[in-house]
């Protein structure tokens, strides 16, 4: 297999990485809102939050992407397919990240909150200065894991016409009749990207001061 083909794959992988990273960030922002809804303990907010998480974790990503891609034009929103793809990925990762955040907050040892109460911090101050920083540190490994999952899941946006790594591999395999080499190379590129993300995640995690044991 020639290097030219490999270069094409690498170029397409830039789309993969970009789409994934954007989706993760948007998903994180949505997850914070959904988590806040769950933590608010008001039925008005908790129920929609739970339904959101249940739906986007229960329906396969492929179906979610097809739904959004076909639904938006029907209700009058015409966006480029890449936007639909990012919206789909973001909503999906938001549901998983909201669950991770929920777990993170639940894991903050109650003693740390009690000692904060004893030195006089108000509930809002406790949330800002103690609970949130510690919960985020506890959630970080799950966040890195989610990043890797989204990078793999981004392969599905190929069905809504985005030419990222998998789509490029499909097109090349079809035109060169070298599916083994092409798909194996694509797989290697995915592996490399995931490995780098895991490595970076591990380094960042080690540099964060003190996670409670």
């Amino acid at each position, binding site marked *: 297999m020639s290097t030219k083909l490999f270069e094409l794959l690498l170029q397409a992988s830039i789309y993969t990485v970009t789409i994934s990273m954007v989706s993760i960030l948007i998903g994180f922002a949505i997850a914070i809102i959904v988590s806040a809804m769950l933590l608010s303990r008001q039925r008005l907010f908790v129920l929609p939050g739970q339904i959101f998480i249940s739906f986007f974790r229960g329906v396969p990503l492929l179906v979610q992407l097809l739904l959004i891609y076909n639904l938006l034009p029907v209700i009058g929103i015409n966006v480029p397919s890449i936007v639909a793809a990012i919206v789909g990925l973001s909503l999906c990762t938001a549901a998983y990240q909201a669950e991770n955040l929920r777990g993170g907050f639940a894991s903050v*040892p109650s*003693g*740390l909150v*009690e*000692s*904060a*109460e*004893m*030195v*006089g*911090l*108000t509930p809002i*101050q406790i949330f800002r*200065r*103690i609970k949130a*920083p*510690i919960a985020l*540190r506890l959630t970080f490994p799950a966040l890195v894991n989610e990043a890797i999952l989204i990078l793999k899941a981004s392969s599905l946006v190929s069905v809504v016409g985005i030419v990222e790594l998998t789509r490029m591999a499909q097109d090349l395999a079809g035109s060169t009749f070298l599916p083994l080499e092409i798909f194996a190379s694509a797989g290697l590129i995915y592996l490399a990207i995931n490995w780098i993300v895991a490595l970076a995640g591990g380094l960042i995690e080690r540099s*964060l*001061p*003190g*996670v*409670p*044991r």
Partner: protein
Amino acid sequence: MSVPAIAVKNLVKTFGDSTVLNGIDLDIAQGQVSCVIGPSGSGKSTLLRCMAFLEESTKGTIAINGEVLGFAENAKGVRERLPAAANRRIRAQIGMVFQQFNLWPHMTALGNVSEALKTVHKINRKDAEERAMAQLAKVGLGGRANHYPSQLSGGQQQRVAIARALALNPKIMLFDEPTSSLDPELTGEVLNVMRDLAAEGMTMVVVSHEIGFAATVGQQIIFLDHGKVLFTGPPQEVFKRPRNPRLEQFLDTYIDRGASMLL
């Protein structure tokens, strides 16, 4: 007669079906060091936590320097929850040291001690850190101010926790089994800090298994069993001449393990 530092009246605490505190009446005098001793499950920690309003009592009242904390109860037994801001203000007179230290892991020792000064009392960073440093030096950890809790030994962490509580100039200090999580050779450094604190006249309530500390530093020993105060008195009366059979039984287990000062 000055008002008691802590006045506990008819305190009852139930968790579901089990009654942990069964009607406690207790006074802690100003400047007095009280040690609460008793078998496991007797309710010692729960009593302390109720005093700090970390647990909500089921019946009865707690008054700190004359002001009722948490729940007010009238003569007919009708309870009323007091406003959160008032409770926070009254509770500010109390400092608490926990068995698990409960230092915030994402802040340095200095950060832990200065946090409340900055966030609650809005003291500027420089002054807050100066006060915090002074407190850390007082417990012998001036050189470790920039260490994170994970870089400190258990004894050091507990001393930082004490400094953190002291930085807010409390009138009363509560200690919930402060040395129970420590390796034996590290308990000494913490007990010494507590000893110095007592010598300065701080009002202290200490729940602990350290009978030696209770016998030498304690002024009022409170023996708790199954949620009731069975006996209170000065160390002489409690340890050298126990008149209560349950108390004798409890102390015997310590003599078996070589607590010779009780003989």
